[in-house]
């Protein structure tokens, strides 16, 4: 049985999404992306210099078979996100867009209200929109109604490597939403990526934990394996867990 993830009209067999930030050089980034097995990679439009060549142009070092997911990093309002998305499309980066609207530079928490507004505008313009958001069911529904192709809730603040601190809220999204839920931000270790997948997340996006590892290539491979393991476990139907031991002397055994 093939287990495919559908985003917009595209079917993906790999459920690890990767990023391009924080690597210390592009060569290492390219090698890491290639080895990760990932099919989708996010890149900040703000970092893309189309006039540059070689090492200076990040796009040249992204494996050609990967789907580009430009992001609107740096946008503080829906309006800025929309303008960045249009620039990305005009620059030939495809029509997928990850909306990041962050108006708080200290914790880098997304602004769900502005994100929903940008989702509406961009989905109407034909973009495949993946909004990055704080896990909130009503906001996720608003984004779904606005035409989002997937929902990307944060596990914990960007770059924090703190794991899935918003677990209960993400679980609610997984249960209630029809769109794929892609856990983005905060995943620091492969075990946490597996945890997200075991919960039923459709995919995870990991950047900092890979890019800032001592050996990013090996870490990317570790994440790929963890995502596959977590997904397999989820599909296999994880048995119920209990915090108490099974009583060996039943209290109602006398009822026969």
């Amino acid at each position, binding site marked *: 049985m093939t287990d495919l993830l559908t985003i917009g009209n595209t079917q993906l067999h790999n459920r690890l999404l990767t990023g391009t*930030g*924080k*690597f*210390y*050089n*592009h060569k290492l980034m390219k090698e890491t992306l290639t080895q990760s097995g990932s099919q989708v990679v996010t890149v900040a*439009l*703000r*970092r*893309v*210099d189309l006039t*540059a060549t070689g090492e*200076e142009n990040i796009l040249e070092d992204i494996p050609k078979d990967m789907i580009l997911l430009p992001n609107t990093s*740096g946008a*503080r309002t829906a309006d*800025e996100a929309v*303008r*960045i998305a249009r*620039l990305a499309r005009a620059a030939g980066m495809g029509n997928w867009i990850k909306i990041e609207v962050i*108006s*708080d*530079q*200290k*914790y*880098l928490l997304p602004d769900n209200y502005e994100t929903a507004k940008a989702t509406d505008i961009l989905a109407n313009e034909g973009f495949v929109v993946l909004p990055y958001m704080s896990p909130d069911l009503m906001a996720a529904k608003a984004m779904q109604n606005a035409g989002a192709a997937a929902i990307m809730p944060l596990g914990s603040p960007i*770059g*924090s*490597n703190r794991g899935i601190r918003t677990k209960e809220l993400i679980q609610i999204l997984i249960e209630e939403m029809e769109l794929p839920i892609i856990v983005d931000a905060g995943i620091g270790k492969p075990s946490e990526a597996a945890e997200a997948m075991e919960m039923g997340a459709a995919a995870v996006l990991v950047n*900092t934990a890979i*890019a*800032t590892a001592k050996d990013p290539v090996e870490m990317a491979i570790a994440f790929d394996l963890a995502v596959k393991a977590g997904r397999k476990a989820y599909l296999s139907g994880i048995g119920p867990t209990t915090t108490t031991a099974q009583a060996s002397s039943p209290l109602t055994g006398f009822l026969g």
Partner: protein
Amino acid sequence: MSFYEEYIQIKNYPFDHFFSTITIQDVKQVIQKERLHTEDFLILLSPAAENCLEEMAQIANNRTVQHFGRTIQLYAPLYLTDYCVNKCTYCSFSIDNDFPRRKLTLAEIEEESKALVKMGLRHIILLTGESRLHSSVDYLCETIDVMKKYFSSLSIEIQPLDTEEYRTLVARGIDGLTVYQEVYNEEIYKQHHLKGPKRNYRYRLEAPERGAKAGMRSVNIGALLGMDDWRKEVFFTGLHAHYLQKNYLETDIALSFPRIRPNLGGFQPKVNVSDKNLVQAMLASRLFLPRAGMTLSTRESAELRRHLLPLGVTKMSAASSTVVGGYANKEHTHSQFEISDKRSVAEVKESLRELGYQPVVKDWEILTHSS
């Protein structure tokens, strides 16, 4: 409450007495904390903390890599004019320094822009002296119109303006504001800023806040180290950054630690700030403000910059000229201060790569309404 009011409340705190009570044990306890309070920051600036710099450096490095990655943003200053109406004891542009002043024409700005693009730079900070006549908002707007064709980010380091004036510049394409308070100690500030609008301490102190209100994406502050006790000056700078972060969540706040350099007036710093002191200032600030940007200027030597890089730095200038019109034509020689790192952009990039950092020349896209 404005930051001036916060400053007034704390300026007479018995810093020296506090520092004398701090032990290495106190410092070690603070280093273990994930979130630092104001008093913790002061503990890290104490003489006792000089014994813990290596431990502080390891944490500072980890936090910086975690938040910013192994990347360093490169930018260059462009001096538009050196006309200045202020009389300041330490600055070459001071009104009573007699030298032929210059102001770039729009054609010259275009020429400088082309030279900077050729050097491989995309983020530029525009500098002027303080003169409402020679560096008017109108002149700056015309400058921006010429330059935004060439660059991805334009910032200003000019005389303090009103909120509305900042708003005008933001709408035109400026995204960053740098204003150094020079010295936070108000009494000493008055001793160095003898004449001109810069004498107004409070108007300058509140400029970063006005810029943030006007929609600047990033605001960079700093004190000129050497004007007073650096421990207190760095403390006030950190408090100021903390105040701005708290009140203007949407603005990126960054810090600089410029040390006084020799200049035309032959000014001697009051306090000698050693390399070790500079390192402590940077580390304490990084631990107190893990998300703040940190800018390293060409005032420091190439050799020292290599060592300072992993301690929390996120941005640095490359191949800087502090001369008006210094990129396209190199014959003009009157600089604001002397730079120590004279390497080319290519050399700076290569050295960053050798140190395991990715030089980032583009990290924004100017979004004015025409885009």
